[in-house]
């Protein structure tokens, strides 16, 4: 904690030195921030798991050569072995393949949900925090009302109204995430808005737009990004829950929640049908949480 002041005697500028400085890009700076992260084994593992899930969502055929819909009554309910890594379900379908193909639907649903939450929550939060006054009060009341409706129940109501399926479930979950998002965004905007450097920028002639875009948003996005990552995991769990209850995509679609719901009936004799897909979900969500936490620590 030695103060560099005592070390650097006040230097006068040397004319030749002017040429040695050039502006270092923002890209360079972000790269140097990312490098230490890559040295942490937990983080790398978490990113690998997420990468696998995303690959499964976009190109499931690359990860498994079985057909997720091909039934094979002879092989029904076999335990995990070298051919069927996760075993088979009651219709003889390879469970691992079903899980991989299910990633597509589940990840899509979660992305849509988080997308809705981001758009709705960010705009409400920024508007509320930036504008203040009446606008802020009204939006906050609205958010209080939304928060009084428990997440799953709100989703159930929406699904009752607009029907079942992957997209309705995603919309329902997304709407439920909006209030929490808006609150966090608003809190961050309020915090940064009152910091001295924002005032300094305004006194230096910056317009509100410039202040918002160049100062407030870049400094407020940290906790919001962390929350978005966490909410992605929560969205996966919520959409899985809704499809577990029977409101997701109709069979034979392989959403993760539906897979687990199917396997319920065979829990005693063939527990892997329910439990292994669930384990995969746990791995994905836990990795997301880990990434979010690492980002949070980095930011502090």
């Amino acid at each position, binding site marked *: 904690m030695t103060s560099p002041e005592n070390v650097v005697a006040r230097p006068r500028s040397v004319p030749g030195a002017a040429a040695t400085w050039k502006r270092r890009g923002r890209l360079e700076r972000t790269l140097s921030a990312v490098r230490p992260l890559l040295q942490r084994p937990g983080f790398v593992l978490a990113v690998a798991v997420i990468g696998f899930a995303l690959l499964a969502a976009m190109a499931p055929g690359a990860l498994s050569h079985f057909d997720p819909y091909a039934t094979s009554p002879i092989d029904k309910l076999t335990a995990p072995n070298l051919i069927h890594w996760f075993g088979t379900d009651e219709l003889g379908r390879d469970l691992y393949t079903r899980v991989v193909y299910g990633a597509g639907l589940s990840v899509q649903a979660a992305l849509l949900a988080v997308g809705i939450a981001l758009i709705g929550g960010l705009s409400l939060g920024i508007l509320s925090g930036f504008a203040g006054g009446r606008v802020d009060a009204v939006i906050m009341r609205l958010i*209080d009302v939304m928060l*009084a409706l428990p997440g799953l129940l709100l989703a*159930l109501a929406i699904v*009752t109204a607009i029907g079942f399926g992957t997209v309705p479930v995603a919309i329902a979950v997304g709407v439920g995430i909006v209030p929490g998002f808006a609150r966090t965004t608003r809190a961050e905007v309020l915090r940064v808005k009152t910091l001295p450097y924002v005032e300094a920028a305004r006194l230096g002639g910056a317009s509100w737009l410039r202040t918002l875009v160049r100062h407030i948003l870049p400094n407020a996005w940290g906790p919001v990004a962390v929350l978005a990552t966490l909410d992605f995991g929560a969205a996966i769990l919520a959409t899985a829950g809704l499809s577990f209850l029977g409101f997701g995509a109709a069979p034979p679609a392989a959403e993760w929640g539906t897979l687990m719901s199917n396997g319920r009936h065979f829990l005693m004799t063939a527990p892997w049908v329910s439990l292994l897909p669930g384990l995969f979900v746990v791995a994905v969500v836990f990795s997301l949480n880990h990434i979010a936490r690492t980002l949070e620590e980095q930011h502090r």
Partner: protein
Amino acid sequence: MSRYLLGRVAQALLVLWGAYSVTYFILYLLPGDTLSIMLSASGVEIDALSPADIAKAKAYYGLDQGIVQQYLSLLGGAIQGDFGFSLTLNRPVSELLVERLPQTLQLAGLAIVLSLIGGVGLAYLTAYVRWQPLKVALARVPALGFSVPVFWMGLLLIQVFAFSLGWFPATGNQNFSALILPATTLAIPSAAVYAQVLQRGFQGVWKEPYIVTAYAKGLSRGQVQRRHAFKNATLPLLTLIGLQVGNTVSGAVLVETIFARAGVGRLAQEAVLRQDIPVVLAIVAVSAAAFVVVNLLVDLLYPALDPRIAHTPKVS
């Protein structure tokens, strides 16, 4: 103080009214054709009816009134406890609720107790331990609690404790031991939240300057923890409990379905499956009421615990 009380109660009622209205909007105004949904819920196909029958059906369901009229009559009924009739079961909704509520309350009650014991216990253990690796490992456990789907956990617990070990029954609601597994399952997400917030709270409080003052008096580490750190770190817990009501209700839907319990949660699942609108509206309204009431109580109790709120200082 009573002016503050009135203000908070009024605010709570406002939020409750807002919640009811939003739910009404979603269920009655969002769908394309509310009438056909309600008819199919009752087992009748709209195409099979003559226009005269359709008009009669509309009048029966109260859908022939204007939107505002319909809303007000529903709201009026709800305030008096009359939530209409279930479309699929043809019974008054309030009757159904009264029948099923005790089961859910038992479950939720035990779950809250278990989650508090688990969450607070884990956080206290993390603070008490001094060996770094164990401390770090314990600090990661709540994240695991967040990552696990409630229903999967339930299935896992059934598999291990009911089928393999045979300690507890897997389903049903006949006796107390049937309550253990469902309550534990329901308790885990809340316990994870309490544990994480408290862990962070302990860490934060430990760095406060008044902890140094306490040490300087000659107190031991244990004494400082008990008398100064612990109480101040657990202050936010009360607010958290209020917020967790929503999660508990949501979780109850899943848990009751898995464990085949006859509670309000499973009623909700069945109602949604059959698009039984009045039941869904009633359940959501009652849950919102529970949330609002509990949080109001928390708001009113908080000053008793935190003197900074009760004794407002003069503005400097």
